[in-house]
């Protein structure tokens, strides 16, 4: 867990034939290891939406399809500007999120690296497509800038939509900061496109808190870019009639209400989930582990993901002033879920608090499901509907909880 990995062994080095050559924008196709660990990075101060543009500028994306929905509209429009400058091969506005995700699928079936963005109700409208992407083994990346999905209409940040994505078969990485978002987008393509993974990825961030605030981000030079996607490394054929188009099966499985159908569908679902698990070995070196930890020898831990982690850090500082020592676990990947890592990191904790930007507490449920003695897990505090979570709220929750315990004694 979190073992430093030497740069040459991070991920399998790109074997792409274009490695080291230049694209039409005068960018050099570069291995991800070189881009992140060898190239000099310089600081820039920008919004999360601009960070998405910066990442896509160097991602060698073939197609991006856009649709307006707050808070991702700006990022989607900025990608359009990149297209008009010549950084992408194809870009257009679809007619709804359901259609957009279909258009993305078509482009991925045809062999392009594909990126899109969505948010909140858009994610839910598109939902039918996500398990289809995974089942079709399409390594599309969707950046989900999470916002409320409730009625009455809300455009405010809220991470409830992530819970709907949990069982779609996609990889799900949750960025805490703009820097995470930049890194996750580029590294996400590489992990999702590995032949033994080759499934879609949702790179998620908390809407507004990340997309619309400015932060300092360390960026590699713009004249480097990822090596392109190679559709012929896909575990299923690319739909371009460049490989034998011989019929795929004797009878369609849907017509076989028998053992063959059951076992085929069951094994395919298992395979998609196995692909999610296989992504660990590529993700751990690239992200320095699926979780980050600080002071996990303490009795009280905050365990969370996204911007709730940032609020947690400040809460820890405030508590420390009062002599209450709290440790921190930041979860970076929701799928694959870091079972063993979380179990190990929390094994000494007596109280595990899970602050979340949603009413449901889906992350707390996930954690409760895997740690022993899960009465230690306190689901909360929660805020929803776009409220910010002041660090004081986390402080109060912890103190209240401890106070109740003291009173009982």
């Amino acid at each position: 867990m979190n073992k430093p990995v030497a740069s040459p062994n991070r991920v399998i080095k790109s074997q792409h034939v274009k490695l080291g050559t230049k694209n039409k924008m005068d960018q050099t196709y570069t291995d991800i290891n070189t881009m992140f660990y060898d190239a000099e990075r310089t600081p820039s101060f920008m919004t999360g939406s601009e960070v998405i543009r910066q990442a896509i500028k160097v991602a060698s994306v073939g197609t991006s399809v856009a649709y307006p929905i707050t808070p991702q509209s700006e990022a989607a429009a900025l990608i359009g500007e990149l297209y008009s400058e010549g950084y992408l091969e194809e870009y257009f506005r679809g007619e709804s999120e359901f259609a957009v995700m279909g258009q993305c699928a078509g482009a991925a079936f045809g062999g392009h690296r594909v990126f899109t963005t969505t948010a909140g109700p858009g994610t839910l409208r598109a939902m039918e497509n996500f398990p289809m992407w995974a089942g079709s083994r399409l390594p599309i990346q969707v950046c989900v800038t999470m916002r409320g999905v409730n009625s009455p209409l809300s455009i405010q940040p809220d991470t409830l939509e992530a819970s709907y994505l949990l069982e779609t078969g996609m990889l799900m990485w949750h960025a805490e900061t703009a820097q995470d978002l930049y890194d996750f987008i580029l590294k996400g393509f590489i992990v999702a496109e590995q032949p033994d993974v080759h499934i879609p990825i949702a790179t998620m961030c908390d809407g507004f808190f990340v997309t619309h605030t400015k932060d300092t981000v360390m960026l590699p030079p713009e004249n480097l870019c990822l090596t392109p996607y190679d559709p012929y490394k896909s575990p299923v054929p690319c739909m371009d009639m460049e490989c034998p188009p011989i019929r795929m099966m004797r009878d369609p499985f849907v017509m076989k209400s028998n053992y063959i159908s059951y076992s085929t569908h069951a094994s395919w679902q298992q395979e998609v989930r196995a692909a999610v698990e296989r992504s660990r070995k590529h993700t751990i070196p690239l992200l320095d582990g699926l979780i980050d930890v600080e002071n996990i020898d303490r009795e009280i831990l905050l365990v969370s993901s996204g911007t709730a982690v940032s609020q947690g850090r400040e809460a820890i500082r405030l508590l420390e002033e009062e002599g209450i020592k709290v440790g921190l676990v930041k979860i970076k990947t929701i799928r694959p879920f870091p079972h063993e890592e979380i179990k190990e990191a929390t094994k000494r904790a007596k109280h595990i608090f899970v602050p979340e930007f949603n009413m449901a507490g889906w992350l707390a449920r996930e954690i409760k499901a895997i740690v022993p003695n899960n009465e230690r897990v306190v689901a909360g505090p929660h805020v929803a509907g776009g409220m910010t979570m002041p660090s004081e709220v986390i402080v109060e929750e912890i103190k209240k909880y401890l106070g109740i315990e003291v009173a009982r004694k």
Partner: protein
Amino acid sequence: MNKDKITLCEELADIMPPEYHELVETATYGKEGRGWKDIGSSKELIEQHSLCAGCPESIAFRYILASLPAPENTVFVGSTGCTSLVFPHVAVQNIHSLFGNQNAIASGLKRTLKRRFPDVEKDVVVLAGDGATVDIGLDMTMQSWFRQEKFTTICFDNELYANTGGQESGLMQKGFVAKMAPAGKNFDKVRLPEIAREAGCHYVAMLTVSKPNRVEKAIRQAVMIAREIGPTYVQLYTPCILEIGKQSMEGLDEMKDAESIGGRFVMKEYISDQAQQLIDDMEAEEKAKKKAAKEAKKAKKPVSA
């Protein structure tokens, strides 16, 4: 694709099924002027079908596959329904993803293939039922036409949801009693050919599949016009004999009745000026070729003394 890509290596040839060998040896990938008349003398690109006995969709599939101008560079996009049960038997790459999103898939696919293969014409053909095309997928069907996406949409119009057991669809005739229309459908058959014309299709044809030469011509024109100009739409009446109470040998008669004077499927075509010009050019080229071939044949004949 060319046939080299499907040719077998000697070491594995003996374990491959005979249908595969036939495909390599006599299928008409890359054959100029291929058409429905190849049926019977060459390996068809559909191996078998899993439809009901006598279903007109099965013959429609055979005619369409025989009529594609370049199956070696064509990708089909299907949708859920009876057609999705047939595609696994077809030796042209095809995508099934969801129900109703076929024209969205085709939009992304066609644009990508155009970028990846700028020097090869990769045709994309959508083939879906009327529920997928007109009801659940109408938004994406029409939006792809508005955007002038360069692919062909074929609708197998059987005037109901066949695969789910005969429910009312938008293309069903008014008054027809069906599941989910217990007192008879109470609005008219949706006029999709007219909608297609107004939405920007450069070639629209509505016909039955009773006459293979007509189907061949419509499919060929639709694919060529989509390749060169913009979206095209072909609506084929493929009655669901099971759900309208016909016997398996009655499909052809049903189609002939429907296309006779006053019927719902009297053949109609809408052709834009641009498309008409292309058709004229193609026909002129064809004529010139035939003439040249005839003259070459004549020149070869020994002159009698």
